[in-house]
Every structure is written in structure tokens, then in C-alpha cells.
């Protein structure tokens, strides 16, 4: 499965939850598949989906899912110790690990070579880290959201992209709509 197929499959699971979605194609795909006020689309700032989602989870009680990529996590590896050492049960970090920088032309990442993000997350102190093949993600994600334990999911999948338009929604509109959904 490629990332867009995964997002289609998990859309019903994440629809009613707060989602912070990674820059580039992941946000564009989620926006096209199932645009929701509970989705925060990153239009820039590669690497910070994990940190933004974690800050949000610490600030309020609703479940938060950060949808990140292996390349973006590699950009901001330093946040994994921060997440591990300040764990909050309402946070799920979903790393869609296709071993490539999808938005920039599928250049390979080190996560697709020798580096295991599962092992990295564990070494950083994250207590619950689950590596899962793409076809098995749904139930694992659902139970992570339902549980009181912070979970890092590394979903191994194929690289590949679909053609789709950029998000033209104004960033302040995205943010305002999202904050209203957080308060609702």
C-alpha cells in the first residue's frame, strides 16, 4: 500500500479526532480524501508535525494524532526524547514509513536503509512503540487512540504518490477552524 491508500483506510478512524498532518503530499491527500475541521494541515515547516501535535496533546485532554513521515521524523529526531520524557496518554504519533521523501520526488531516506525508527523511538525512551505493516494499521491505530498510553506507530509501506492539487485554504482559516474544533 502507498500512503494515500493508507490514509483512505484510516480516514474513518481518525475523522472525529484532532489530527496534525505532515507538510506536503500527506496533508494534500488527507485534505482530498476527508477534509475535516479537526484536521490541521501543515503548509510548511518540515519536521514539526510531531512537535505541534504533542504540544496540542499536552495542552488539552482530547486525543491527538500526528501523522508524520519517516523523512520528517529524521528531520526532527530530537523531539522523540522530548515526547518520551513528557509522555501523555492522549497522544499518538503515526509515522508512515515508506522509506522515501515522497513530496520531493521519492528520494530514499535512511529509514528505508539501515536506520530503524522503531528502534530509535524505543531508544529515546518511548515506552509503547509498534511497528506494523500497512495492511494491519487500522486496528493498531484504533487501539492506540482508545488506550491511555502514548503510542508511537511505525507503519511500513510502499513509496509512491498520486497526482493531486495543493491546499489553497488560507493558513489562518485552517488554524481558526481547527481551534474551534479543539474547543467544541
Amino acid at each position, binding site marked *: 500500500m502507498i500512503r494515500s491508500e493508507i490514509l483512505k483506510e484510516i480516514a474513518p478512524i481518525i475523522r472525529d479526532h484532532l489530527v*496534525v498532518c505532515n507538510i506536503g503530499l500527506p496533508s494534500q491527500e488527507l485534505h482530498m480524501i476527508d477534509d475535516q475541521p479537526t484536521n*490541521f494541515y*501543515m*503548509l*510548511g*515547516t518540515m*519536521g*514539526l508535525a*510531531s*512537535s*505541534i*501535535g*504533542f*504540544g*496540542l*496533546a*499536552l*495542552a*488539552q485532554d482530547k486525543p491527538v494524532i500526528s501523522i508524520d513521515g519517516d523523512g520528517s521524523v529524521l528531520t*526532527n529526531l*530530537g*523531539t522523540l*526524547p*522530548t515526547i518520551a520524557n*513528557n509522555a501523555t496518554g492522549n497522544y499518538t504519533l503515526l509515522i508512515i514509513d515508506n522509506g522515501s521523501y515522497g513530496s520531493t520526488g521519492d528520494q530514499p531516506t535512511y529509514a528505508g536503509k539501515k536506520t530503524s525508527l522503531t528502534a530509535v523511538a524505543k531508544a529515546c525512551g518511548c515506552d509503547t512503540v509498534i511497528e506494523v505493516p500497512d495492511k494491519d494499521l487500522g486496528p493498531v491505530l484504533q487501539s492506540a487512540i482508545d488506550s491511555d498510553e502514548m503510542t508511537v506507530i511505525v507503519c511500513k509501506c510502499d513509496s509512491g504518490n498520486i497526482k493531486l492539487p495543493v491546499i489553497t485554504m488560507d*493558513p*489562518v482559516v*485552517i*488554524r481558526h477552524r*481547527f*481551534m474551534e474544533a*479543539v*474547543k467544541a
Partner: protein
Amino acid sequence: MNIDKKIADDLVANDVSFVTTVPCKQLAGVIEEMENREEIFHIPSNKEDEGMGLCAGAFMGGKRPAIIMQNTAIGVTINTLATLTQYYRMPLPMIISYRGELREPVACQVEMAVHTKALLAQLNIPTYHFHWQKDVEEFDNILKYTFMCNKPVAILTDANFWGGYGDQ
């Protein structure tokens, strides 16, 4: 006047309850205040752009955030300031240790000090410079201004403000 306590008091009085820090020798006292105040959730960051991400999330979650960091971080965070904090129009008081200014003992710190105000000006970030201890009296107004206009705002605090480096 204890400026560490004054800064913490003003943060609390302005409902700032989520503070991330990246350490600096000059900021040790104020970071300790952040850790000790019950009203403030203190979360150390490993890098300043990560900290700004945490603050963005906390703001959207209903908390007023702040970041405490060195001026070298301006070199690290320009993309985050432009494409996250400013683009989505979020408030962020940045309490910045202004290394490389008067009474600085480490020459390399001057290399980023000479760029700091120019970079902040280029980003159109409102910038205040605390050089004398009495300058801290403006801090409360700066916080109110930051959350009024939903912008990142820089408060540069130099070695003279913090009382120098002793015998170094």
C-alpha cells in the same frame, strides 16, 4: 529586584502556562523559576524549532505559550518563524539571551550577535532589548502586546541585564 522572579511573575500574571526552554548560562535562574512555578508547565526542548512547534500546538490547545532560548536560535528557527508562527498568525513571546553583546567573554558569540537584530528586523518581528535591569519593567506590556497582535515578539536580554559573568 530579582529579575528571574519578575519575569516568571509577569508570565503567570499574563496567563502564560506553557513554557519551553533551551538552556543558556544567563537564563539558568529564569529556567529554574519555570520549573518551580505551579502555574507553568515547563518542557525543555532539544532544539528551538522543535520548541516553537510545541508552542504552536499548545496555543491551538488553548494555552498561552512562551519560549526561552539563546539568540543563536534565530539562525536555527527562521523557517519555523516564517512558515508556522507567522504564517498561521500565532503569538509567541521569545525571551532571548542576547549572547555576544557587552560583557560577553566568548568571542564566537559575537558572530551571531551581529546578525541578531538584522535578522529579526528582516522578519518584521517586534524586538525589545533589555540592557539595564529596570528595562524588565516593560516585560508585562510586551506580553500583553504579543497576545494582542498574535505575532512572535523578541525580547533580547544581554549580559549587562543579567549582571555580567562575574570573574570570567
